[in-house]
């Protein structure tokens, strides 16, 4: 069984407090770690405005996780998102070789506008 690299972006509802938001993000990261996935990169984009209303909200906390995992894991991981009502949206994509090169550059901050803060912990 081969491992693949994935990237998940999820949006948490803005009603959470700062601490709750961090806890929730940590929960998903911890879930991946427990299932034996390897976290490659994580980003927290903070509170961002949405382009359109989702669940009657105009803003959301964006988080990104890039990880290496067994393809079997993705299904259960996405179920976790569906069960959690604090998650407004999520998207998981698998990364091909060009995407990997791109995300590596992105992580090293080679793009001028990408202002990134490492999510705490």
């Amino acid at each position, binding site marked *: 069984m081969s491992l693949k690299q994935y990237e998940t*972006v999820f*949006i948490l509802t803005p009603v959470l407090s700062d601490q709750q938001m961090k806890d929730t993000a940590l929960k998903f990261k911890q879930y991946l770690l427990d299932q034996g996935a390897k976290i490659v990169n994580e980003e927290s984009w903070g509170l961002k405005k*949405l382009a*359109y209303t989702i669940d009657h909200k105009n803003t959301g906390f964006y988080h990104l996780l890039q990880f290496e995992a067994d393809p079997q894991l993705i299904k259960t991981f996405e179920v976790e998102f569906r069960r959690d009502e604090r998650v407004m*949206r999520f998207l998981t*994509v698998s990364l091909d070789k*060009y995407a990997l*090169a791109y995300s590596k550059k*992105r992580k090293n901050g080679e793009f001028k*506008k990408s202002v990134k803060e490492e999510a705490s912990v």
Partner: protein
Amino acid sequence: MTLVNESVNRTEVRKKYCRFKKMGIKYIDYKDASFLLKFVNEQGKLLPRRLTGTSLKYQRKVSQAVKRSRHLGLMPYVTDSLK
């Protein structure tokens, strides 16, 4: 005197090119909404290849990226004044 078609100066017509091929861009990031804005019109609809000059291979990737971006609320599905 008959009408004679005069030759039209067409040197100003520039050939379209695919910006991804020219710049060597291999991956189109759905997280970069400001870049993807170049490929949609004011209403947030995808522009056709005949206007942007993008090759088919990359047009498919652009469209995929725009759709992902819309799903995540980074770009609108419908709007009136994007630009």
